[in-house]
């Protein structure tokens, strides 16, 4: 039941983006939309693979993790305005791809790529913290919570920090354990998609209007 609700929320985020397309144009959220579409497709493909070709489930999840990481890493890279912070996702990506390559060549019988997923979660938490820090220190942004990207990052931050421990242990789960613990992932996936929907539905922020930089002392 919860899996179905999770899937509905995944579709809902795609629908919300398309419904509020005008509001999301030129906001740098296309990559998140592509990620949402990819998630919906991956969910369908994942179910099919699990039924027919369970042996290759490891590779499927590993590929999903790579794609998911790539979408988010690009989103963060594009969102970092400061040159000094832009190198963080670049370095992170090199480390991540290195780890993924390592797990690909050294796979065992496990069905879930725990190391890559956990690494992805840690990197996403780091990017989110850097993003939020750069937002609160930027004089151009008066109300950080008025921006669409803020809610996207909050969703990412919440999702990856809540599922970090789950991903750490996921490789060693029995099917029964997987069933009972995967609820955590589903709940936070719903929360993530809800926050995505909020972000997509939000009106375009006009932070520059309220910026301290644009404040005119000669208004008198």
């Amino acid at each position, binding site marked *: 039941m919860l899996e179905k609700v999770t899937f509905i929320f995944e579709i809902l985020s795609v629908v919300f983006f398309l419904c509020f397309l005008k509001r999301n144009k030129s906001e740098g959220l296309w990559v998140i939309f592509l990620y949402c579409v990819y998630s919906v497709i991956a969910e369908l493909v994942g179910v099919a693979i699990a039924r027919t070709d369970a042996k290759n489930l490891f590779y499927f999840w590993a590929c999903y993790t790579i794609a998911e990481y790539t979408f988010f890493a690009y989103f963060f890279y594009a969102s970092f305005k400061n040159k000094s912070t832009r190198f963080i996702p670049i370095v992170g990506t090199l480390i991540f791809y290195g780890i993924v390559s390592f797990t690909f060549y050294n796979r065992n019988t496990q069905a879930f790529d725990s190391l890559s997923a956990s690494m992805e979660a840690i990197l996403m938490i780091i990017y989110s913290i850097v993003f*939020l820090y750069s937002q*609160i220190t930027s004089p151009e942004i008066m*109300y*950080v919570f008025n921006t669409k990207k803020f809610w996207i990052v909050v969703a990412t931050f919440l999702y990856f*920090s809540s599922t*970090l*421990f789950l991903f750490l242990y996921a490789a060693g789960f029995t099917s029964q354990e997987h069933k009972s613990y995967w609820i955590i992932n589903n709940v936070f996936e719903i929360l993530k998609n809800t926050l995505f929907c909020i972000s997509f539905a939000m009106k375009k922020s006009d932070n520059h209007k309220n910026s301290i930089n644009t404040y005119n002392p000669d208004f008198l």
Partner: protein
Amino acid sequence: MILLQATPGSNVSLVLYFGTIGMLALTIGLIVFIIFHQRKVIRYQLRLQRMEQDQQKLLLNASIRLQEEERQRIAADLHDDAGPLLATARLYLNENLVNLDKTTQLQSIYNAKQIIDDTIQLIRNISHSLMPPTLKNFGLESAVNDLFQKISGSGSMNASSRFHDYRERLQAENELIIFRVIQELVNNILKHSNASFIHLTQNTSGEKFFIRLHHDGRGITQNDFNKLNKSNVGLGLKNIQSRLKVLHGKIFFEKDMSQTYYKVTIELIKEEEDKLGEQE
């Protein structure tokens, strides 16, 4: 990560749940902290904005009041001095029409001429006080030297000035602004300080242009200046501040290292001055 994965199975659920709850709590805490911190920063910035607005308002009011006072002074000069003089000259000339006696006529024409000369001198004085001709024709250095010679000549105070590096004149409008600031400062020293000497020096250092005034009377420090600027008194100081704002200049009031003299430093950036000139 590997260590955590190696934890025995019985503890997995405990670590998993506590870990997840802990991470979630940390994340929520961080987000809440960011939101509250930002609200605090916004409030602080708004307070700063409001303070700056108030300061602008005070400066604007001061400059308007000063302008009005200047107008009133010119009006009073014209009305009280030039008006009666011209009326008297008119009377003498009128007498000329009535009285046909030649010697009386000559006498009244001579009197009228004298009065008209006085009026011309009076109007010249008013005009000079509005825009000193020395400043216009020969620049800031000559105008300041002239002003200080006049003060010294009065015998009440020893005043001297020295320009060390003023080969290139500033823009005429800016020279006038600086001259007015110096006038205001000197005026304040004459009125309030009880000093026995004033010494002015001009210097440049890189792109910076300095004018420094020393005197041995009672003076004010930067703290006093800031306090007076925020209050409703100290009209002259506000006027100085608003004039320097036009030039993006700064003014510092301090006591000399020896604690004997008071020092006022006006600091301008030459580049700013050039930019302002280009804009004009």
